């Protein structure tokens, strides 16, 4: 079985699965239950001067009757006294010395406040510190959280204050609510941060109640923008993780703890392949509980075994070299869609998607009579269905309808790809509801690979020119 032990800038944990700083890590009792369930580490719900929360606090987006594709919250940091949290951290570390406990911190932006907080937390026994410069709601209005993380100078200064006294590794948690996350990451690196975590939640309004006209979550008829997370944000998180890990301006990259929509081992593997050292999970646990980590450990370990990865270091960052700028992509690579007639169920979603949403090269014009082979004559498009007179088939009165063609689906319902017009965009294969029915097949062009950068070597195409 693959070795999942993790060393994140000196923070050790039995596996790379950490709970993100959030309600699942609110108390020592919870964190200990999480460790019992299998979690390798926990980033404590952000500690600072206790706040007062509102109710309600969460809202979500459902997708096709599936709950919580995206979750949003307007909850603030811990509402429990600092000393209570620190006492419980000490207790957890006493009972679970091999697991990672990282304290998420947020205090007012003064050197003294940060120095005091760092010392007290480390005295309690935390293995590391995560500076919460990302919380997008509420705290940012008080000059903390994202108000710090959106300004590189503030990020750098406070990180420097922390590093003046910290004895344990310091992680800076990055907010995605900026134009270029790399600028903030560089500031943290310049200040001597030992690691980063990304992404924090994304500014969002999940929706409006169409009866009361109030946004969700409803707090006495009003709401506020909240932090968005869950499966919906994973692609955004992956992109930002790649941006940070591929950025070498101002020095080499430092370890990154990946966050954003991770719910199973496959999600985790993707973050690791883009260079993350550990991953953090919140929404999936808020949905299903701590038990999901069992599947994550098992799935990741099986996949590593199947691919010959003995340790996490063997796979970490393996996909980074495969992300490049558009200008470096091969213009002479050509693929086209192929429909497997034996699998096609005749829904014709590929046809309408291509026709209305892409490049008009999938047709429904196969003849309904016998054909010679699978290449067919092209009849005129059929009359629209409503005009046809149809009756309930009654065995006594109606001969069974003749089935047309050699496939399970009647030939007239199986669409046809015009390969000379197909641009290989993938859309049909994305909408096709049958696995492996539409595949994208490479058509050798006989041309040597050539990128836009190479083709336009003479032309400068870097930044848009704006005339004054």
């Amino acid at each position, binding site marked *: 079985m693959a070795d999942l032990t993790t060393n994140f800038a000196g923070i050790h944990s039995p596996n790379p699965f950490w709970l993100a700083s959030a309600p699942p890590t609110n108390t020592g009792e919870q964190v200990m239950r999480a460790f019992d369930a299998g979690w390798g580490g926990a980033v404590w719900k952000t500690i600072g001067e206790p706040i007062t929360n509102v109710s309600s606090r969460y809202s979500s987006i459902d997708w096709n*009757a599936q709950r919580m594709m995206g979750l949003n919250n307007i909850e603030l940091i811990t509402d429990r006294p600092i000393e209570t949290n620190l006492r419980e951290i000490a207790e957890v570390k006493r009972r679970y010395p091999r697991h990672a406990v990282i304290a998420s911190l947020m205090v007012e932006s003064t050197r003294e406040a940060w120095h005091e907080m760092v010392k007290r937390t480390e005295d309690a026994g935390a293995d590391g510190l995560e500076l919460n410069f990302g919380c997008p709601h509420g705290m940012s209005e008080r000059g903390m959280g994202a108000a710090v993380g959106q300004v590189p100078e503030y990020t750098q200064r406070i990180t420097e204050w922390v590093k003046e006294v910290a004895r344990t590794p310091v992680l800076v948690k990055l907010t995605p609510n900026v134009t270029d996350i790399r600028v903030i990451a560089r500031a943290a690196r310049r200040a001597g941060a030992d690691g980063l975590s990304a992404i924090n939640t994304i500014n969002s309004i999940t929706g409006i109640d169409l009866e009361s006209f109030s946004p969700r979550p409803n707090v006495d008829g009003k709401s506020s923008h909240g932090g968005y997370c869950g499966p919906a944000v994973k692609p955004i998180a992956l992109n930002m993780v790649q941006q940070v890990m591929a950025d070498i301006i101002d020095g080499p990259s430092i370890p990154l703890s990946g966050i954003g929509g991770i719910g199973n081992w496959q999600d985790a593997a993707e973050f690791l392949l883009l260079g993350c050292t550990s991953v953090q999970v919140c929404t999936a646990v808020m949905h299903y509980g701590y038990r999901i980590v069992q599947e994550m450990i098992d799935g990741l370990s099986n996949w590593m075994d199947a691919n010959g990865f003995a340790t996490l270091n063997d796979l970490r960052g393996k996909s980074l070299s495969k992300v490049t700028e558009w200008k470096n992509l091969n213009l002479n690579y050509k693929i086209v869609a192929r429909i497997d007639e034996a699998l096609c*169920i005749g*829904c014709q979603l590929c046809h309408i998607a291509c026709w209305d949403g892409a490049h008009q090269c999938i047709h429904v014009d196969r003849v309904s009579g016998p054909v010679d082979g699978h290449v067919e004559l092209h009849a005129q498009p059929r009359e629209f269905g409503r005009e046809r*007179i149809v009756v*309930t088939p*009654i065995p006594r009165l109606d001969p069974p309808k003749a089935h047309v063609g050699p496939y399970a*689906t009647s030939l007239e319902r199986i669409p046809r790809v015009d390969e000379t017009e197909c641009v290989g965009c993938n859309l049909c294969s994305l909408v096709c509801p049958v696995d492996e029915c539409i595949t994208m097949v490479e058509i050798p062009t006989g041309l040597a690979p050539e990128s836009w950068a190479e083709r336009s070597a003479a032309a400068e195409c870097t930044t848009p020119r704006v005339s004054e």
Partner: protein
Amino acid sequence: MEFATSPEIAQCFPDLHPAMDARAAVVEANRCLNCFDAPCMGACPTHIDVPGFIRKIAAGNVSGSARTILDANVLGASCSRVCPVEVLCEGACVLHGKHQKPIEIGRLQRFATETFYDAGGRLALRQRDERTQRIACIGAGPASLACAAELRQQGFQVHVIDRRPLPGGLNTYGVAEYKLRAADSLREVEMVRGLGVEFETRDVDAASLEELEREYDAVFLGVGLGAMHRLEVADAHTAGAGIIDALKFIAAYKTGTPLSIGRRVVVIGAGNTAIDAACAAKRLGAETVTLVYRRQRENIPAFDFEYDHALREGVEFLWATLPTAITANDTGLVLTCVAVTQDANGHLTSQPGSEFTIECDAVVPAIGQSPLLELLSQVRGVTMQRGRVAIDRATGQTANPKYFAGGDCVNDGREVVDAVADGKRAALGIADWLLARMEEHSG
């Protein structure tokens, strides 16, 4: 026209396919792939925009969904319960090709239409201006209701005339109670009445036909079929009230006056009506219900799913059996039968010496209805073909241009949805014909 199903009957006939709740409907609606030129829509005789109405359920627009359904099929609520969806929309669902359960289109349609009606939803006129032309629809069954509703929605003046006290035709009197209650059929009729269609209860004979022809600009014949074929057996007269026509039996229990059938019931025939009668007899307390059919299992006119349902209800089947005589004895009836063989052409031969008897309390023939030749032959200029009214399929127009027809009297007894499609096509045909004539006169 208040009508309430008795609690005893309601208890015997709970819904075969129970209603869906809102949450289940959304989950099911979200399984729909939203096919382009969807096969389910093509398979529906009324071409309901199935992906369209399902998408509206998924999006929480239930009233819009119901309007989409009712726009295509004004009896969308009853069709959702009585349609043989297995051979129509759901049978055509592409999910069969993925070895998955088809979308439960029938139950989703029921959810949308019933939620709409329960919330006070009503049918709407398509056009504000009243038209002066008057149309009489003879018969108040599904074909006439669909024809009347469409014409009224276009502003025409429509009268529906039926000889039975309750309107709705077979929807009210003839559908198995576990599929559709008489009260539900009548609620749907009220929706049509709410459009401004007028209903009358009276017999139509030769004299009144002439009068109707004078008074109305067009006449729609939605008269359905006539009485059940007579059971041709020896000594039938001795059985008296022990022989109960399946349609009369069904109509009686549905409208609150169930006929006595005793403990042992024999149903003759193997069509959908025979199955309905057999299952009803079982539910109304018969201990044994035997269905006697002269051909083999694979020849039955009933849908396969109806046969399977009858097996689950405990109905027994006797194949290749022909009843020859009925006599009465002290304890009930004695039905004499003979075994028959069938040759390759379907020709039946009785096997000499194979006679046997079945003791029973009631014999229920369900061997098909005869056409209403007596009435239809009195309609001037309307021609018949093999017992059916001959029409132009696209418009429903008969050989006499003033008469249109649809439903069982033209299609030899198909489903409710076929009658609705016929009625609507005829309504469009009538409207076109009347408006063209109006232009001729003014031009």
